[in-house]
Structure formats: structure tokens, C-alpha cells
């Protein structure tokens, strides 16, 4: 044995296959799109239209005070929908705070998905039933959770993959780094989807990173990086599906960067004109995920006006239902505040609950 044989000396893997193609992968409008399954494209289209309408409706609800806040994913619907649809029912989704749309696209009731944002408890839906972790507000903190869950599944011989979503800003957090490193060392069946929408609130990408692309970060962990046009729903869906498949089959984690754009402000409370040019927004509006897909579908004769109208009508019905059901505040029981802190409330919590009950009783009587 010489030093040249010792593990520290030898590179673990070859870097070349890990490096992303710096040109974002596209399918729609390319010859390869001809091979895409029309049924899949139809599903993606219905969801995109629905998703766009959902964002608009939720934003409108904030203006009416029915929601505390809403971070819209308008412009990013292709990523949201593709993420949800790339998973099989037994897989797990780990959404970031902006990803309500992915949660809804995966089958959660549109009202339940807004539970947190309307000022109620955090997770309206049952995470175990839907296999969707709570929408994570502290950025990037959900990534190690996805790794741990995927690792646990693998240890149990359970063919489950986890898909974790994060923003371009979130990639700067230490948790991003630690999660990707654990995933690669453990060869955990997890896929990381970075939605690079150009901004972290007001901070543009150039102040966030000097990396060639965010997908290049994969190399430093020893996992493959892929770059994809985040507004091309077919491309995102394909790249994610391949990565999820590979993960589930023991091929390890992948980092996917989807290049996209946040068309709306950060949330309804934000004023995006303070930090970006309308011309940039316009450029991205001209590269719209719904239009990109519709152009493809129309060219292939898969979408006529009637079909388009049907999709719009369905979305409208969903929005009307959402509006109506969100019209009333939910009935919350304040004493439930003490019930889920621990499996069994402590003596102190029991006393505090009693105090609050007495106060509520007094209030009711006065």
C-alpha cells in the first residue's frame, strides 16, 4: 500500500458525469417533444391552468382579509405541477412555504392547503395520509428532513423516494449543504428541486451566488446536477421523474435546478417594483409556462378551443368553491392550543388550559 492507494488520495468519483449541462434542458417546441405522451401533457395542462387560477384566487383572498398572507407561485406553475406529478403515491413531498400549488396538485383539498396561511394551525392536511410534510417556513430546514425520511425508507427496504423543494435563496443556508452532503454519503433516495426564480424576496441571484449555475453545486457533494427550463413543464416533469426513478432504484440523490421566474411580488405584502425592472418581468411573461405548453399542444392538434375552455371552466369552478369555502373564518377552539404540545399535557399546561377556559367562560358570561 502506498499513499496513492489510500482513500484520501484517490478521488471518490469522476466529476465529469456529475456536471450539469449549463444550457437548461427543454422539451416543448423541440423535436423530442413529439415522443411525449398526450395523456400526460393533457394532465399537465389541466393542472397548470388550475394552478394559475388558484394563485390568482388565493391572492384575491388576501385582499379580502381571508388569508393572512399568500406567496404566489404564478410563473412557476410548471415546477409546482411537475413536482407533484413526478411522484408516485408512496413517495413523499417536502414543500417549501411557496409550494401550496404542489400540495394541491398532489391531491390535498384546496382549502385545507391554505390552513396555515389563513391564520389557523400550520398543517391543515394530514401529512402522513398525503405523504406531504408541512409547508416549511424556515428556509432549507426541510431538506435534511427529506434526507432522513428517504434514508429511513431505504433502511427499511421500502421503495420510497422523497422530493424536496427549495428556492434559490434557500441554497445559501447551511441546511442545504448539510442535507445534500448527508444524502450523497448515505445514497439516500431523495431529489432536490431548486426553483431558481431569480429572487429571494428582493435579493437577486447575483447577490446570492457566484456559481456557474446552482446545479453545479451538485458536484461538490458527488451527485449529478441537472439544469432545466423551469417553465417547460414537460422538461421539468421528465427530469424529475428520471431522478425520482433513479433514487427509488438505489441510484442515489440528484440536484435539479429549474430556471424560472416569480411573476408576482414575493407575497401580497411585497412591492416588487422597488427592486426589479418591468422589462425583466415582461421577458418572462413572454416565456410563460402555460403558453409554452399550449403552443405545443395546439401545434400537435391536442388542444382546441373547446378543450381549452373546459380547462378554464374547471379551474373557475375550483376557484368559486375556494372563494365560497374561504368566506367564513373557521371555528377554532383556543383550548386546543395546549393539547398537542406533548403527547400528554404537563401539569403546568393543564393549569394554563384551565385558566384560559375560565377566562373564556367569563368572557362568554359578560
Amino acid at each position: 500500500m502506498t499513499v496513492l492507494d489510500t482513500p484520501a488520495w484517490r478521488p471518490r468519483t469522476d466529476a465529469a458525469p456529475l456536471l450539469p449541462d449549463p444550457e437548461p434542458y427543454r422539451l416543448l417546441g423541440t423535436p423530442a417533444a413529439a415522443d411525449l405522451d398526450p395523456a400526460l401533457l393533457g394532465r399537465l395542462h389541466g393542472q397548470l391552468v388550475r394552478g394559475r387560477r388558484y394563485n390568482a384566487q388565493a391572492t384575491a383572498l388576501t385582499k379580502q382579509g381571508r388569508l393572512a398572507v399568500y406567496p404566489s407561485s404564478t410563473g412557476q406553475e410548471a415546477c409546482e405541477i411537475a413536482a407533484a406529478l413526478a411522484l408516485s403515491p408512496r413517495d413523499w413531498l417536502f414543500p417549501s412555504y411557496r409550494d401550496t400549488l404542489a400540495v394541491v396538485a398532489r391531491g390535498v383539498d384546496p382549502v385545507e392547503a391554505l390552513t396555515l396561511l389563513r391564520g389557523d394551525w400550520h398543517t391543515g392536511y394530514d401529512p402522513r395520509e398525503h405523504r406531504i410534510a408541512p409547508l416549511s417556513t424556515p428556509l432549507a430546514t426541510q431538506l435534511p428532513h427529506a434526507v432522513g425520511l428517504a434514508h429511513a425508507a431505504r433502511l427499511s427496504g421500502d421503495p420510497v423516494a422523497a422530493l424536496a423543494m427549495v428556492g434559490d435563496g434557500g441554497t445559501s443556508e447551511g441546511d442545504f449543504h448539510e442535507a445534500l452532503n448527508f444524502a450523497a454519503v448515505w445514497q439516500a433516495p431523495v431529489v432536490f428541486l431548486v426553483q431558481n426564480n431569480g429572487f429571494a424576496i428582493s435579493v437577486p441571484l447575483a447577490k446570492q451566488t457566484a456559481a456557474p449555475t446552482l446545479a453545479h453545486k451538485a458536484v461538490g457533494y458527488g451527485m449529478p446536477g441537472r439544469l432545466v427550463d423551469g417553465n417547460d413543464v414537460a422538461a421539468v416533469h421528465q427530469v424529475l421523474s428520471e431522478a425520482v426513478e433513479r433514487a427509488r432504484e438505489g441510484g442515489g440523490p440528484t440536484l435539479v435546478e429549474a430556471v424560472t421566474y416569480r411573476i408576482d411580488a414575493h407575497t401580497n405584502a411585497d412591492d416588487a417594483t422597488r427592486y426589479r425592472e418591468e422589462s425583466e418581468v415582461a421577458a418572462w411573461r413572454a416565456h410563460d409556462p402555460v403558453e409554452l405548453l399550449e403552443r405545443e399542444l395546439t401545434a400537435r392538434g391536442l388542444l382546441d378551443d373547446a378543450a381549452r375552455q373546459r380547462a378554464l371552466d374547471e379551474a373557475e369552478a375550483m376557484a368559486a368553491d375556494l372563494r365560497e369555502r374561504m368566506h367564513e373564518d373557521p371555528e377554532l377552539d383556543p383550548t386546543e392550543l395546549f393539547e398537542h404540545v406533548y403527547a400528554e399535557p404537563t401539569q403546568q399546561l393543564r393549569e394554563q388550559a384551565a385558566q384560559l377556559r375560565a377566562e373564556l367562560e367569563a368572557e362568554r358570561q359578560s
Partner: protein
Amino acid sequence: MTTATTAADRAEAPSRKPATMAQALNQALRDSLAADPAVHVMGEDVGTLGGVFRITDGLTRDFGEDRCTDTPLAEAGILGAAVGMAMYGLRPVVEMQFDAFAYPAFEQLVSHVARMRNRTRGALPLPITVRIPYGGGIGGVEHHSDSSEAYYLHTPGLHVVTPATVEDAYGLLRASIASDDPVIFLEPKRLYWSKADWSPQEPSAVPPIGRAAVRRTGRTATLVTYGPSLPVCLEAAEAAEEEGWDLGVVDLRSLVPFDEETVAAAVRATGRAVVVHESSGFGGAGAEIAARITERCFHHLEAPVLRVAGFDIPYPPPMLERHHLPGVDRILDAVGRLQWEER
């Protein structure tokens, strides 16, 4: 740079005008930047946007990107970089966007910010101000309403300051930035839009960190509080008049240093005390305050020092937060129980 303008503005207009706490904080940052080239403001969205609460509004425009800098999104990195900047001789003023988003920086804070001076026997003081918008009452979703002061006040080496008035917001922030020690500067979010007639104090008139303010003298009992709970306590004191109670109110202004003298004197004057804060009671600041009052004033106490604090639960969702926050009724109820027989 608008150093000159700023100074001129003040020279022209010494008279008091209505201002919000947010405006006073912005002015304090401006005046600190103008007064000392070593001062640097940094954090997430503090530049072009002016911060999500607009506390840093216009600073990048007026002082340049190098003096007010949008950083990458990484709180440990921000505070860690500030440590290095302070080692070089700068005075970083760091913004953590919300209370719960300061937690990633906890190791840097406890293991370095709080200890660098001590570990180097004074050779490397770290004059860093960490501004943290804290507390609830603004309908914020989870992670946007934490009261984290207890974590900081138990960490030797940190000062912990929290203003409750517009005037103190300006004065204490200037004093914190001028301090050669690290200061955790906790800004009560729900008071950002509170208003008062005010004009920026001259630096010489800025109160030193570590002096509590007696906001109201009383004879029946003493409320001891700080930050977002001060207005609630003052309201409670007014309401108490109807019950025939004459309540004193002490505003701590800084938890570290803790002004034992002022607190003890105010409690001795009444023989009864209630400590009020919105963070969870268990192991909260009120525990220290109550324990200390008892140690110092035991034979003056007619009743145990009581605490009115948030429940021992994670901060509740917006629709339920009013049940969690100490309000006037809960304070008056505690005052009522000061005529206390053991349960």
C-alpha cells in the same frame, strides 16, 4: 452620502414631530452611519428593499451598497461575517429578518459573539449590534412571532436591549451601536407603527444602556415589564384606577444589564409586584426578574411576585394569538391575586 443633509435636517428641525418607532429606528441607523464610517448595516433585503419592515429604508441609496449591504440568505454566515468585520475594526449592525430566523446563527452568537472579548482578554471586543424584530401581535404566521429574549439573556457576554417607546428606539439603538460590546437589540414588531411626538436626541442625551425607566409610580403594586408589553401594562394601570389600585410601571429597557436598583426600589415602594412579558413563562425573563426581586426584597413583599406571561406553548396561529398574549384583564387578575393566600 447624505451625512450633511441629515445633520442639517436636524439642525433645522429640533422641534418634536410625530414619528413611528420604525422611523425613529431608521433615523438612528442613518445618524449612526453618518457619525461613524465604521458602522455597516447588513442583512437579508436591507438594501434596495429597505428591509421587510422598512427599517433600513433608503440607507443603501444614501450611504451606498458597501455601508448597507444585501447579504446572501444565511444567518450564521451573516453573523459570522460580522464577527470578522468587527475583528477588523468595523461596527456591523446586523438585521435578522424575524426572531425565529435568528436561530441558525445561534452557535455564532453563543460561541463567538458573546465570548470573543473574554477569550482574548479584551484584545478582540466585538461591537456588533444584532437587530431582531421580535414578538407577536401582528398576525404573523408560524416562526414570525417568537419572543426569544430568554435565550439571549442567559448568555454571558451579550447585552440584551429592547425599546418600548419611540424615543427609546432611537436612543437605545444609537447607544447599542456605539457600545463596544455585542448587543442583541430586540425590536417589538407590534410597536413599529406606534407613534409619538419626538425629535432625535443629541448623542449626548442618549440614555446609557442598563437603566430601567419608571414609567409610572404607584402605591398598590408594581408592574415590571419591557418591550411590547409596556403599552399593555400602562393600559392596565389606567384601568386599575377604576378598581382603586394605584399601579407603578417599570420599563426595563435592557434585560442585560439588569437594573436591579430601580426595580427593587419600585417594588419596595409597593410590596407587591407582577412581572409581565409575552414570551412563554417557563424559564422566561420573568423567572429571573421574579427570583431576583424576591431575593432582594423578600421582607418587603406582602405577596409572592407573580408572573403574567405567554403560555408554555409554541406561539399560536394568528387566529388564536389574542388568547396567548398577556392582556389587561390577565394583568389585573394577577394584581387581584396579590392579596394572595396560598393555594
